[in-house]
């Protein structure tokens, strides 16, 4: 149900954005030396680190002869949320996030190129202000590009919600924590925008099926916009020519 207070009478959201504005995204590739690829991404106040190791030999139990095994671990720092988080990983929500991350990233990686191998992706959330899954997928996408693993396309994720302004329903893109907590619906889409395909679709809270279409379209549009931003960041990083690894070896 769209909450009436998500959108004010002037058409501004709770944090002052317009309904179709994304939060500011700042990112940096190649922030660590040890992993094969790494990235740091900020989406508004949500700050996420991603590190990629691989492809390397897979452990015997997890090995697959047909494709590479993608292993994701999602961890939230204890200081990342408003109240101190006692269990950074291993609780049910983190396990579910790891499964969803694995699903989205497996759709993007060309898994048939590295049979019997394993790619490890570690996500650490330093500050959580809503949209942590989306920021994690975006950061992991950059880290995969930094590590040189072949991808089918960029994989980006975006969330969308529904606000009500007088009589009209207006979809809101990039949901922040305060909007999530106000019992607004949150539809999360992870897609490969250049191919138009959806890798993951997830929704919590109630949404009437008549409004589903506009919220999904807005989220897909948000994914496309984020892809443009990430692409720009990758090109700029390549133009500068340095990662921390290059600095050490030269």
């Amino acid at each position, binding site marked *: 149900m769209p909450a009436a207070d998500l959108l004010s009478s002037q058409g501004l959201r709770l944090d002052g954005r317009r309904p179709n504005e994304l939060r500011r995204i700042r990112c940096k590739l190649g922030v660590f030396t040890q992993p094969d690829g790494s990235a740091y991404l900020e989406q508004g106040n949500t700050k996420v680190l991603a590190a990629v190791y691989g492809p390397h030999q897979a452990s015997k139990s997890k090995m697959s002869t*047909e*494709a590479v095994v993608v292993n994701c671990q999602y961890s939230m720092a204890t200081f990342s949320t408003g109240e101190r988080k006692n269990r950074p990983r291993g609780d*049910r929500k983190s396990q*579910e996030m790891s499964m969803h991350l694995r699903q989205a990233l497996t759709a993007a990686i060309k898994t*048939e190129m590295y049979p019997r191998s394993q790619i490890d992706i570690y996500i650490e959330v330093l500050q959580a202000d809503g949209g942590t899954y989306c920021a994690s997928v975006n950061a992991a996408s950059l880290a995969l590009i930094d590590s040189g693993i072949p991808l089918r396309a960029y994989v980006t994720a975006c969330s969308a919600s529904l606000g009500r302004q007088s009589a009209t329903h207006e979809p809101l893109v990039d949901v922040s924590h305060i909007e999530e907590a106000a019992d607004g619906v949150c539809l999360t889409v992870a897609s490969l925008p250049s191919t*138009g395909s959806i890798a993951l679709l997830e929704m919590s*809270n*109630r949404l009437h099926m008549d409004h589903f279409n506009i919220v*999904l379209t807005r989220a897909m549009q948000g994914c496309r916009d984020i892809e443009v931003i990430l692409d720009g960041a990758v090109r700029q990083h390549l133009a500068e020519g340095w990662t921390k690894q290059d600095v050490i070896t030269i």
Partner: protein
Amino acid sequence: MRDTCLSNCEKNFIQKIVSQGHRLDGRNFNETRKLDISFGSEYGCCIVSLGETKILSEVTCEVAQPKQIRPNEGIIFINVELNPMAAPQFEANRQTDLTVYLVRLLEKCYKDSKCIDLESLCIVVEEKVWSLRINIKVLNHDGNLTECASIATLASIAHFRRPDFTRDGDRVIIHTLTEKDPIPTVLYHYPVCTTFALYSNDILLTDPNFLEESVCTSNTEEGINTAGGLLVLGMNQYREVCLLDLTGAAIYTSNIVHKALLSAADKCKKYVEIIKNAVAKDDNLRQKREKINFSDIITTEHMLALSRKDLNIQLKHYDVTELDEKDEEMFSDEDDIKPEPSKYDVVATVPNTAELKSKEGKSEWIEVSSDSGED
């Protein structure tokens, strides 16, 4: 025990017949298996069977301290147990990906959608509230655990009654079931989940069984383009989507989700009706002081009790009444041997299927001669 792999033959065969418009058990693409809800003697205990998938759900309550951030609301725990009784590949006491998946889907559908009135579970603000614990045990896994588990959860919550209590100054007295009538839980709306199996070419299968589900969730060598996925939709009777989850391979357009939404809205409404009727019927029986327990599912007269239907592959063009001319010639040769009266009947119960049905009666020992001198 390790998971038995899905062979390439089975996978290719199923993908081929699905693209030609058939299903292995003869159902249409939007037909579900037989749904059966039965309640136990305790309030809040029920077994739901969807075809051969059987799930037991139980709701219990106890007094606990509320969370600090929500001092006037009750607490709900959902716990799913998959043990080797359900399928040989499950390991006892181990939380696998499937367990986490099921628990999170049920939590999103029933906790995050706020279908249960938590404030009615409060006893004393900031000190005592009712904590409901929903235990789901999978008895048999034949595909589509999510749908069956959600129906079981909803039926058991709707059936459950908590003890009444009275406040006496500082003390709170909780009455037993014999002193005061227990109170049913307050549900704002009734959300139910349905599962669809997605195959290539935009084909949606309702209520996939174990084989169809395994084909969808397996990996393919060609990459993601031809693999399928599973779409879980949770809707209530007011056509609101409470839960949406797409697992598996990447899908190309979102049209298939819209198609699924329309189909799910009708299905969920029907399920909610069925659940409400079942709870009302059970309530009537209890008011008449009839004893209700699970033994009603098991009948002692009939030989086939709680067992599976023998045929799970149906041939679409088989008619039991057609007899070939060739067969009649063969029959005339055996005239001198008198066949004994058969204990079974060949009955066309479902169109295009022949089923062996035993004549009703108790099981009997059959005389077997021990003359066979062959080795």
